[in-house]
């Protein structure tokens, strides 16, 4: 089965349509270990480095994919579609205009966009995307989401390194569903057998730009921070809610995708905050780590009101800007460690 790649700054792509068309949905996340020189010919260095890495990946690997779908997301990268159209070789490039809002009109528009995507896929690949196939894909998606939720809940109870959680999420976003499903079963068993949550680590909620490489998660571990909750798209947003059971599978997808916890690229901030409050109520966290990738403007803009709102409720919040790099950043680690030391009340003799 071929991979059909998608450009998605959040969790906006209806993966079930790709699955119903007979493809493996593959989220393009770039490779932090590779230079973005190929993409930098088309995008200046003040653009999101993650998006430059995605373009670099597409320039190198697009021929291995059946096609590429762009989902409307971050305003800064939406129009990268035009650059990809010009420079990335692919037999199928589609713009999926996922609406920003969740009003009745937006939902009506969402249906039009779903139907347009279905038609384009059917015509291009000579397949029939039936309601039955979509329902089947929804069933598989929900099964993965349930397993991820169960795995994720172990983060606050067991000794689960941050990189293990991110690895699981990335696998779910890039590999065949059947393979992932079996693998998740074994991971749940494995994680359950791990020792209890280590007493020398702090429990944190992670918010902000998506993390796509495990080295950054290792830095958190090295600084005594364990991420036990998050609201990232390469994270909880992917599995926080299930696709509802509806007679019309398109109706189910519309309801699901317009109702998932909001990223910074979707209004309103209050809706984003509501999920954070809920997560912090469900799981007792020692602190909140808010971070934004350099040049990631949606999260940078949101960070001030979001962090102020969390602080107003008494949560301890640390906000940092990070580079897109797997290299250890001592200055960054210093801030994290100092924050953890501060939580411990310091030790001034």
């Amino acid at each position, binding site marked *: 089965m071929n991979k059909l790649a998608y450009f998605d700054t959040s969790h906006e792509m209806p993966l079930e349509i790709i699955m119903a068309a007979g493809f493996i949905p593959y989220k393009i996340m770039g490779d932090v270990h590779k230079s973005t020189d190929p993409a930098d010919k088309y995008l200046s260095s003040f653009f999101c480095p993650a998006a430059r890495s995605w373009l670099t990946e597409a320039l190198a690997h697009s021929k291995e994919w059946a096609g590429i779908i762009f989902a409307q997301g971050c305003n800064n990268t939406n129009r990268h579609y035009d650059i990809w159209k010009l420079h990335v070789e692919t037999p199928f490039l589609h713009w999926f205009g996922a609406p920003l809002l969740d009003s009745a009109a937006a939902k009506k528009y969402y249906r039009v966009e779903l139907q347009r995507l279905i038609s384009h896929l059917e015509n291009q690949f000579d397949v029939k995307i039936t309601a039955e196939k979509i329902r089947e894909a929804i069933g598989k998606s929900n099964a993965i989401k349930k397993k991820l939720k169960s795995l994720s809940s172990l983060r606050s109870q067991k000794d689960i390194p941050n990189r293990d959680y991110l690895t699981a999420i990335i696998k779910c976003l890039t590999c065949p569903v059947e393979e992932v499903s079996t693998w998740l079963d074994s991971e749940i068993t494995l994680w359950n057998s791990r020792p209890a949550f280590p007493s020398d680590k702090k429990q944190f909620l992670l918010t902000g730009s998506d993390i796509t490489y495990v080295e950054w998660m290792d830095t958190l571990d090295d600084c005594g921070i364990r991420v036990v909750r998050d609201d990232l798209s390469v994270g909880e947003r992917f599995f926080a809610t299930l696709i509802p059971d509806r007679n019309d599978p398109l109706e189910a997808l519309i309801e699901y995708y317009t109702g998932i916890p909001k990223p910074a690229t979707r209004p309103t901030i209050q809706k984003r905050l509501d999920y954070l409050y809920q997560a912090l109520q469900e799981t007792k966290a020692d602190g909140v780590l808010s971070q934004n990738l350099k040049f990631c403007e949606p999260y940078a803009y949101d960070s001030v009101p979001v962090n102020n709102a969390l602080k107003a409720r008494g949560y301890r919040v640390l906000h940092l*800007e990070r*580079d897109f790099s797997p290299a250890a*950043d*001592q*200055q960054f680690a*210093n*801030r994290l*460690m*100092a924050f953890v*030391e*501060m939580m411990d*009340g*310091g*030790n*001034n*003799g």
Partner: protein
Amino acid sequence: MITAGIDIGSITAKVAIFENGKLLATKVIFTGYNAEAAGLKVYDEILKEKDINKSVIAKIVSTGYGRNSVKFADKSYTEIMCHATGAHFLNPRIRSIIDIGGQDSKAILLDDKGKVKNFVMNDKCAAGTGRFLEVMARAMEVNLDEFGAMSIKSKQPSKISSLCTVFAESEVISLIAKGEQRQDIIAGIHESIASRISSMIGRVGIKEPVMITGGVARNIGVVHALEKKLGMKIEVSPYAQVNGAIGAAIIAASP
């Protein structure tokens, strides 16, 4: 009980030896290329100078960017914690610390027990750090140790508008070409650092009394420029440069 604090910074390695709540000795050497070797050297040298046997050192705490290269340390803490501890020891009334080191600058707020309430650090940029001053001293062909004394002679500090080290250096070269007085340019450089630091401090809110720590505290020009910019007196301890090491030694002595 005798304890040691070792602070490995990007430019200098510092050590402090503490005995039963009293500071016995301190020492500073250049870190150089090998932070691990610098840690060992500064530690060995102070023990030799003070005729202290290694076996009597009960505990060692390391701090600074090279803290993890001090393999023989029992524990390590960030310099934020150590500077807070050191400053509280030197003057328990201190509520804010401005720490300007070789590669970064920090503002730390303390509570009445000397615990860190909040802190802020500069971004990954040399502006407002000791490295910035080094680059400027080279451009001005002045020994860094003379920088402070020269700048306080200035009657009309030059205006350095660029905050970036690289562009500020070009600006300084232009000012030299224009024939501006050396002391005025240096005073302008100090004012640009003060401007950068005061913006950073504004993010946490400063509370008096304020102490300056780190190697740049030795530069009276920077201290004066900061006092002028912030409109408050800044306390400079003779131990400003080794304050982090002192804090580390105190932490080492704590249970």
